[in-house]
């Protein structure tokens, strides 16, 4: 049986990881500051956007990707929903799953984006960071089309 302190620590870790993801969302939604976003990732982190958006290896590559993001993506709201967070018994790594509902404006066009995330975390110097963020795109559709007519706008 875990001690009361260990049980409180687990709840604090879950809350900290949850907050990290929402911080990521808020930085995306307020202009994609590459420096601040990259600071949420470990030095060796991987951002995996799949075949649609490619893979970035390391904090520097992740920063560069985010620095360019708002050129065409002029508006976005990342609604982070339905988290499941599992902290490893070591207390220094964790895995998380999230849903994302994201209305956005891309090149002047209203787009609806539905993603799930598989994230991995490491606790570095007492702070939880992303060590891996993997995105699965379920649809990325022009608002006026809907997801039956156009599942992925990147296919068109």
């Amino acid at each position, binding site marked *: 049986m875990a001690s009361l302190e260990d049980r409180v620590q687990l709840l604090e870790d879950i809350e900290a990881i949850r*907050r990290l993801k*929402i911080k990521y969302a*808020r930085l995306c939604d307020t202009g994609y500051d590459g420096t601040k976003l990259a600071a949420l990732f470990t030095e060796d982190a991987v951002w995996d956007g799949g075949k649609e958006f490619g893979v970035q290896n390391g904090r520097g590559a992740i920063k560069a990707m985010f620095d360019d993001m708002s050129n065409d993506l002029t508006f976005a*709201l990342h*609604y*982070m*929903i339905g988290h499941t967070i599992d902290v490893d018994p070591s207390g220094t790594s964790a895995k998380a799953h999230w849903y994302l509902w994201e209305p956005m404006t891309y090149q002047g066009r*209203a787009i609806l984006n539905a993603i799930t995330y598989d994230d991995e975390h490491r606790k570095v110097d007492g702070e939880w960071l992303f060590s891996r963020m993997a995105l699965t795109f379920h649809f990325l559709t022009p608002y006026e089309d809907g997801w039956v007519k156009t599942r992925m706008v990147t296919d068109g």
Partner: protein
Amino acid sequence: MPSERTVEQRLQRLEDIAAVRQLKHTYAKLMDAGLCHENKAWPDDRFLALFADDAIWESNVHGRHEGREALRALFAGWAARITFAKHHTIAPSIDIAPSGAEASGHWYTWETITADGQPIWLAATYNDDFVKRDRRWLIKHVRSNIQFRSPYHQGWAAEAPLPQMGA
């Protein structure tokens, strides 16, 4: 958490976060139930009791309203126009002050609304303040930053960005 805090203090913080989260979600729940009701008498005292007496409600679109009676008038105005509302209130970031008597919270909301008979998407973020009085958390200051209010059939890309308030 600094290690000098006792386990009981750390647990108290987690309980306060849960209580503030539930307060905000009760605000959404009672507002939606009130606005959707066929024979509405909203805002009722149960809803207004979620707020401190000197509470403020403000947004970048609706202006600033201070005190419980001003809030009653603001919400009654909505009730006259809105026949359906769902506030999907999402992703809380809640900070409890070291005193344990004040808190702030950020949320996202994705709202489906019928206003003046028309379907509307409304997307907003909240930067709210809370106070604990007589062992109960109350809403002290709602700041709603509306990101877009768009007719369902039009979508949000055609709208000019709304000016945003600071926290």
